[in-house]
């Protein structure tokens, strides 16, 4: 987040004149709208906002946002964004990447931008497939994914984007999905966080990996399968109307969670855990929670700011420059010199 003067805009102000070229029905449309809806709420200034992306379906994103945009090369967006932030820390940078771009070819850069804690919002659109290259399996595809490059099913284990981010040292980790009404809130929390804010956004590639997230994203039965986390609130899910509410309880002796029933809304009696977004150990447990026996944790999983990389670089530069002579002539003549008469 940048403490800058807020500017009044509407959703329309963030639309470009460019024709949007995603497949009809692609989840990217919903994410684009969510972002365009969020930016006015943040008071963001289009002139001071910069969207930077790599390569892939998700990375076309900057062309459709009326701000500064840089569509770079495959996997390297974090490196470009780091240079941008070091050159001008005041710019509000949004990074757009995908599971192939960010975790395969660009895994190294994603790791380092997170570990350095460069202040920006990093949106990783996870559709568990390579869309733009026509459907090969990706590093987040589940085992046995059939694709043009794995006609008999993939055999390698997928990576978990949020666990990767935490492992790399991220200080903000959140999850949302394309059509979720809560996505703007997640984006706002990410923007409010000073430092690298990592958001995994499950995105439906309707052409090559249709409805692969329906297990938890489909509206029907969603209450039982989505655990929306709020800092300071109990970890509850289930059907409010029917009153069938469940919660997560920490089984401390075995260091794992268990699902418990909440009777008459008395979650305390049921021993339900309260979410603490600043607890890193808790975050590790949440991102590793196996889906199926447990619901999918969504929302802000971890949010514990630390000094940003660019502020440290600027401070060091200021310290090192203090009181130093900046005469180029003197610099050139530095060291042991001699004069010829």
């Amino acid at each position, binding site marked *: 987040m940048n403490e800058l003067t807020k500017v009044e805009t509407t959703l329309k102000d963030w639309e470009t004149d460019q024709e949007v070229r995603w497949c009809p029905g692609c989840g990217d449309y919903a994410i684009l709208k969510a972002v365009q809806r969020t930016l006015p709420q943040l008071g963001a200034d289009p002139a001071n906002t910069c969207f930077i992306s790599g390569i892939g379906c998700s990375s076309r994103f900057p062309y459709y946002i009326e701000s500064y945009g840089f569509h770079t090369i495959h996997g390297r967006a974090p490196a*470009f964004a780091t240079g941008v932030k070091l050159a001008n820390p005041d710019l509000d940078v949004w990074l757009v990447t995908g599971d192939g771009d960010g975790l395969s070819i660009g895994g190294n850069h994603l790791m380092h931008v997170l570990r350095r804690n460069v202040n920006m919002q990093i949106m990783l659109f996870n559709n568990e497939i390579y869309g733009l290259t026509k459907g090969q399996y990706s590093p987040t595809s589940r085992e046995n994914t059939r694709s043009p490059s794995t006609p008999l099913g993939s055999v390698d284990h997928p990576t978990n984007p949020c666990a990767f981010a935490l492992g790399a040292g991220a200080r903000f980790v959140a999850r949302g999905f394309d059509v979720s009404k809560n996505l703007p809130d997640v984006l706002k929390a990410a923007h409010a966080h000073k430092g690298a804010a990592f958001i995994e956004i499950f995105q439906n590639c309707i052409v090559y990996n249709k409805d692969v997230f329906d297990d938890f994203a489909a509206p029907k039965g969603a209450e039982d399968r989505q655990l929306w986390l709020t800092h300071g609130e109990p970890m509850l899910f289930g059907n409010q109307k029917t009153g069938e509410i469940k919660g997560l309880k920490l089984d401390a002796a075995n260091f794992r969670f268990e699902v418990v029933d909440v009777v008459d809304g008395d979650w305390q009696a049921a021993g339900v855990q309260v979410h603490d977004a600043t607890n890193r150990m808790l975050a590790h447990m949440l991102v590793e929670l196996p889906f199926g026996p447990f619901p999918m944790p969504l929302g802000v999983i971890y949010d514990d700011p630390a000094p940003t990389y660019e502020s440290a670089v600027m401070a060091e530069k200021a310290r090192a420059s203090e009181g130093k002579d900046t005469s180029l002539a003197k610099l050139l003549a530095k060291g042991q010199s001699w004069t*010829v008469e």
Partner: protein
Amino acid sequence: MATQAADKPALKTEGTAPDAVVVRFAGDSGDGMQLTGGQFTLSTALAGNDLATFPDFPAEIRAPQGTLFGVSAFQINFGSREINTAGDAPDVLVAMNPAALKVNLDALKPGGLIIADTGEFTKRNLDKAKYDSNPLEDGSLAKWDLLAFDISALTIEAVKDFGLGNKDALRSKNMWTLGLALWMFDRDRQPIIDWLKSKFRNKPEIADANIAALNAGHAYGETAELSGPLRQVQVAPLPAEPGLYRTITGAEAVSLGLVAGAQLAGLPMFFGGYPITPASAILHHLARLKEFGVTTFQAEDEIAAICSAIGASYAGQLGVTSSSGPGIALKGEAMGLAVMTELPLVIVNSQRGGPSTGLPTKTEQSDLYQAVYGRNGDAPIPVISASSPGDVFECAIEACRIAVEYMTPVMLLTDGYIANAAEPWKVPDPDSFAPFKVEFLTEKNNGDQLLPYKRDENGKRPWIKPGTPGLMHRIGGIEKQEGTGNIDYSPENHQAMTDARKDKIDGISVPDQQVTVGNDSGKLLVVGWGSTFGPIRRAVSNCRARGLDVSHTHFRHIWPLPANSGELLRRFDKVLVPEMNTGQFKTVLRDQLLVDAQPYTKTSGQPFKIAELEAAIEEALK
């Protein structure tokens, strides 16, 4: 210009002072030979001699002691005349152990002087150097003068009062040797003493021990003078153009040139780098110049290094990245993006022996194809090459100028030799360079419309900083529509944009090519580029002194070539192109100018010898 018989040792010119002397210090990589050489260079520069140096060290940081591949050497050529190279063959070889003797002996002039430390010629070290018998005793060194004595024991004796263990005491051996060398050439010890005091200011006992060793070596020369081959030699100073001088290495000069270039452009500089031999020294130098508006960023890899620099340029700073061959290969795709998005960027390539990891610490000029052609698509970028450590300074400024005046990435080629070698450098006046101040676009440039790809008369597009109100736009690696920069795959547009990118680079104004030595026409023109400048200039001068019709021209601008290049080359019957590769510039010249340029190539990781070039010139003139 004075010439010197190549086979006659300088120290044997009885009665007269030699006009140049070549000394090579060789020892184990742990013996501190580079430091010894560096300090000897400084004292030589302060004595007013012209000089050139050649550090030659192994790629391993601590190669096993005493082995042949662990030998580190530093050669210096200095004189009372103009010095163009580090010298073909040493007059004096200082060998700190058997391996150093074995590796370097072949180069020594017959009749030259060997100074050897007998204390290191033990059975164990002789075995490691694969000597069957001790060369100091078996008569195999008869064609040279030999001065063998126990430098190790003398050093231990000299520092015994400082309470150091044997191992630490022996670390001062290089200073003892330097003391002797300073005596031989009648040099002032004080600057070295000052340097030792400042280097070891937190360890005064180490400083004192080193100074004692230095003094002892010097005193040894004084007392041993009466007998044997050791005698003092005076090399007169070279009258030079008045002014302030210092010694400079290529790595220092490129760093200073970039700082100067950024200032002339009126921009802060962003340097993205990744450690690689021999380019890291640039990152190290710039990291200490923060007060000059320099931000250095050690990226996670070569790709991130260039991408961060492009990001910084996009945000309005002067982005710079540097590497050597293998790292440059990794940066190729990002260079293409800088071409496509037309953002300024300087890429410094300190070339080394290739392909692959190749010879990390040895010099070569084999990245010229990579520089000129090494990207996907039609992605022309200007290429500039520096001819000496001092020349890099101006080349770096020139690279910055072209980058911002044409909104393009620029490749600056140096090599391992230039990066590490030192030469006396007349400190330039920064005000003598014309500024090329950058102006960013601040308002719409086509009525009420913004055209990020509207070109000026040079074909340059405007530079627009994110953060500028009202000029929001998108750029990227997909083909851009003329003017708007929006995505456009149409056939006519791609044709037009490819042409525009090519025309812009072809149209860069570079100075006409001049003849460096000799005439504007004649029988033979020797065409060089890069660090071969010294040896070519010397060889051509020597041949001309013998009456041969040969001239020398040296290219700074490799791409685009100066407009008069073809006409110049065609005025000669023959064109010979010596290069430390298999003939890459020759190919470019043939292709661009349709002249019958003939190659003369060498890829041994060592610079050309003057004698080799003279022979090649004579052969070409037959």
